[in-house]
């Protein structure tokens, strides 16, 4: 079924009925009843075909060669069917992604790499046997500590395809002449995404078609990536992901475990093979946020107007696959200054490849920038909100394009009012309540409005005024299923109950990843375009059975800078004896365009704030440099915010619509809540104690 290209017009305001209303999650009842099948829970055909269980065997050295895999004891273990290693696994086609070259050669690039896969009749047998596989290595020296090394280099681009370095004006000259200069280095640690549902999949190969029930943020991207490597046509790879327990970016691209289970299934035609990655294995195999070191130099005149902004980033990539986090990207568009320089340099390490983690680039970069701005406000004797207002650019400083909407100042002002900012003492270390130093802080947030090409929807008329709407989008727990139904209803001008939506299956029209806060805009554009084309072709009373499949064009303005903005406000308490840090109050105010569903939007923004607090206060993976091994590899030792940490949390959004950013009028909300939050906490901790903390997590020991 081929799609037509359809220039799309934004949803008309008076056509909007379902969009913007508080629609409860359509899959809520199924989920709370435990009847929504997550990846390894599929029991329907073909996943019921005499299922086998796979267990991953991981390298215990950081770099070297596998000399031999002795699986004799493992194979002898009752219930074990086979053990695959690099000598026995099916061969893949040449590709460009080393991460997916699972069991293709003897090279070990990082500690925790898959070196064998055990297949057994039960998961217990597979796990026990995995411990019996003996792997001999030729171990080579490695570099796993994040430090400037001889190999440090400047990449050509950082993610997704941005220049690594930008420069405008005379930064050094402007800094030399600036009345006030902030010159400091800010750091963020290794973090792991840790969605609730670990990565998991069931694969079945019938000799012709490979079927995969996966826990992924994009079924088509998985098929598009894996099929050529497997030497299959895309039609031979059928991927579904009806329910996914979160991803936070870690399921945005297929990782090695998906390839491992697929390879294993191909050795067992006719049998389903099930793989559930353990929490510990996730710390090596499913991506992480690379640590960052941001050196900032801000120069301002006596009134706090920026004359120069410099942001130089040093961060690791894995040596064997480049990953350049776009840490300085938000700095390029955030504030006005004639002289600006940003750059990234990468330290190649013998470690697992970093990957996407919620608000990649923006989270670490804006932590640095917004703490630096707070330092500048203190240095200039200005209120931090006023400082930001004074540095508002008229147009996007990087591209010179006008902003479709620049909501930052409105967010700051609205937040200030609601948070009670005017009562804040100007001085730090001014409030002691009982045993706690109390302070408040603010930080700005931003996130680009992305709309991906490559999405198609299909709309078919059904009986009784119903419409079948199909698109391969994935709902990773965000509420996409609900929101797309609302969009389809308004695009077709019918009640939401008339829409029967199907998603998350490669048999449906192609869709891009649930990532980059782009899903609702990208999939929504395809649905709106298809509805417009459908009505044009089939009218308002279509015969059952007629259908249209279309792809949107002209969905987003190319003449505008399209960004969401926000402001987060934190109250922080620091125990005056032990330094323990608590956040009794957090408020986020956002400018995100039209909010399609206030219930699910609120969850996304609240969830973002919680995660922002969590990275601000707790999250840090300790990678032992001697071995390259992340040793804080479970949720008892890798701390995320607990219930007791989440107190009074409020979010609010400005009432707006942005038809320039997407036909649905929204700019995406999945990630912006994480941006700036950690900085507002660090800034509030400074206000409470007078101690400036320039790296996260902001832990108790910093205040002793």
């Amino acid at each position, binding site marked *: 079924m081929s799609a037509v290209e359809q220039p799309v017009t934004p949803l008309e305001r008076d056509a909007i009925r379902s969009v913007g209303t508080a629609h409860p999650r359509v899959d809520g009842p199924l989920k709370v009843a435990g009847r929504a099948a997550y990846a390894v829970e599929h029991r329907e055909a073909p996943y019921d075909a005499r299922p086998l269980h796979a267990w991953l065997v991981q390298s215990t050295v950081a770099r070297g060669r596998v000399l031999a895999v002795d699986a004799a004891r493992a194979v002898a273990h009752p219930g074990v069917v086979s053990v695959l290693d690099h000598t026995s696994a099916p061969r893949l086609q040449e590709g460009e992604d080393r991460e997916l070259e699972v069991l293709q050669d003897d090279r070990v690039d990082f500690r925790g790499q898959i070196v064998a896969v055990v297949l057994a009749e039960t998961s217990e047998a597979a796990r026990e046997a995995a411990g019996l596989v003996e792997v001999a290595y030729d171990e080579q020296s490695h570099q796993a500590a994040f430090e400037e090394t001889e190999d440090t280099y400047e990449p050509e681009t950082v993610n997704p395809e941005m220049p690594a370095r930008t420069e405008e004006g005379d930064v050094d000259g402007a800094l030399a002449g600036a009345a006030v200069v902030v010159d400091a280095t800010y750091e963020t640690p290794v973090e792991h995404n840790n969605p609730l549902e670990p990565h998991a999949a069931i694969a079945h190969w019938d000799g012709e078609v490979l079927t995969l029930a996966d826990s992924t943020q994009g079924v088509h991207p998985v098929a598009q990536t894996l099929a050529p490597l497997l030497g299959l046509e895309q039609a031979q790879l059928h991927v579904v992901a009806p329910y996914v327990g979160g991803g936070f970016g870690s399921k945005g691209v297929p990782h090695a475990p998906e390839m491992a289970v697929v390879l294993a299934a191909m050795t067992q035609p006719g049998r389903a093979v099930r793989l559930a990655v353990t929490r510990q294995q996730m710390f090596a195999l499913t991506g992480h946020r690379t640590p960052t070191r941001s050196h900032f130099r801000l120069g301002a005149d006596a009134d706090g107007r920026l004359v120069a902004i410099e942001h130089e980033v040093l961060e690791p990539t894995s040596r064997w696959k480049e990953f350049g986090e776009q840490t300085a990207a938000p700095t390029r568009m955030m504030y006005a200054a004639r002289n600006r320089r940003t750059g990234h340099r990468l330290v190649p390490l013998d470690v697992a490849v970093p990957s996407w983690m919620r608000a990649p680039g923006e989270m670490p970069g804006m932590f640095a920038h917004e703490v630096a701005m707070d330092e500048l406000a203190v240095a200039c004797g200005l209120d931090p909100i006023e400082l930001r207002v004074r540095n508002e650019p008229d147009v996007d400083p990087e591209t010179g394009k006008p902003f479709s909407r620049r909501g930052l100042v409105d967010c700051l002002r609205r937040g200030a009012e609601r948070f009670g900012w005017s009562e804040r003492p100007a001085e730090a270390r001014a409030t002691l309540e009982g045993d706690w130093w109390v302070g408040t802080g603010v930080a700005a947030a931003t996130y680009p409005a992305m709309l991906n090409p490559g999405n198609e929807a299909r709309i078919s008329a059904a009986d009784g005024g119903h419409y079948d709407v199909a698109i391969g989008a994935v709902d990773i727990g965000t509420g996409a299923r609900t929101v797309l139904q609302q969009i389809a209803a308004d695009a077709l001008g019918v009640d939401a109950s008339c829409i029967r939506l199907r998603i998350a299956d490669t048999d449906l029209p192609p869709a891009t990843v649930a990532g980059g806060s782009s899903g609702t805009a990208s999939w929504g554009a395809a649905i709106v375009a298809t509805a417009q084309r459908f009505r044009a072709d089939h009218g308002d009373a279509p015969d059952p059975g007629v259908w249209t499949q279309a792809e949107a064009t002209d969905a987003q303005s190319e003449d505008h800078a399209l960004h969401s903005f926000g402001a987060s406000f934190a109250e922080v308490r620091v125990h005056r004896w032990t330094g*323990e840090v*608590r956040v009794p109050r957090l408020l986020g105010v956002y400018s995100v365009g039209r909010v399609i569903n206030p219930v699910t939007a609120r969850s996304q923004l609240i969830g973002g704030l919680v995660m922002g607090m969590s990275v601000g206060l*707790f999250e840090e993976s300790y990678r032992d440099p001697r071995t390259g091994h992340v*040793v804080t590899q479970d949720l008892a*030792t890798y701390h995320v*915010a*607990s219930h*007791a*940490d989440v107190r009074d949390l409020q979010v609010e959004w400005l009432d707006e619509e942005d038809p320039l950013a997407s036909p649905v009028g929204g700019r995406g909300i999945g990630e912006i809540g994480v941006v700036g939050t950690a900085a507002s906490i660090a800034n509030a901790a400074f206000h409470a104690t007078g101690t400036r903390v320039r790296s996260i*997590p902001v832990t108790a020991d910093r205040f002793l």
Partner: protein
Amino acid sequence: MRELDYHRADDAAGAVALVSGDPEASFLGGGTNLVDHLKLGVARPRVLVDISRLPLDQVEEVELPGDSGGGPGLRVGANVRNSDLAAHPAVRSGWPVVSRALLAGASGQLRHQATTGGNLMQRTRCVYFQDVTTACNKREPGSGCSAIGGYARYNAVLGASEHCVTVHPSDLAVALAAVDAVVVVLGPDGERRVPFEELHRLPGDAPERDTTLAHGELITAVELPASAAAATSTYHKARDRASYAFALVSVAAALELDEAGRVADVRIAWGGIAHKPWRARVAEQALLGAEPTEERVAAACADELADARTSEGNAFKVPMVTAATQHVLQSLQGGRR
């Protein structure tokens, strides 16, 4: 698959006989620690003797026997669940430090499941101990200690050895050390009483041994002597997140002042500091008879910590435990500064 024999013990002596006669047997209490270790491959017993249904689940106000110091006190059965012990009115009024320490630990679900005996016998949370792909003398004697020169945030600052630098994770144990509890132990040769400070040991050259109990000795009860100090006691656990985290450091303290505001009786125990709950006897001595001012408490802690050895990762523990001790003793003085 690894096979296990499971026995549900009917009486304590039978349980002791089963475990003491078999080096590959283990007691199973609430299972919140041992079952994790089974899954991780950290513990590999062939026989589990489930003691959780033994009738050791009472908290009784008793006259303590002479070898527990005599006098009025509380006898806590080894199977009393952490939640029940924390909520017990006698504990809350006579030994509030015990209740607070319990409530500062783990989560509600875990506390419902965890037993008093199991809590005291829980093993270290050292990340290397829990990961069979790394060297650890405690898990595999002679293999080396990965924590030295590695992840150090939780490492000990007192009493560590070149063989092991980890700390004991239990909050309850710190409180019991502060109130001079006595542990009642049943072995193949009968019952004995172990003063709490002698239950856990320092690692020395045998870090695989957490306690002084022999294999197969069963904790049947813990006895708590009543005192004025114990009734004025509290616990502060400094930790990174507000709940569900092990202590960076913790302080259990009990205090009795005379009319002049001088220390008549003080007991201080520290958690997160050593391989065992650290009874700060030196600091206690320094404070007896004096007014417990901020400066004096700091000086007393400095004496106690004179031999502290730290690395970059855990150096914060010395000022943190000092400040936490100041805080706790101050709050026990009823707000007096």
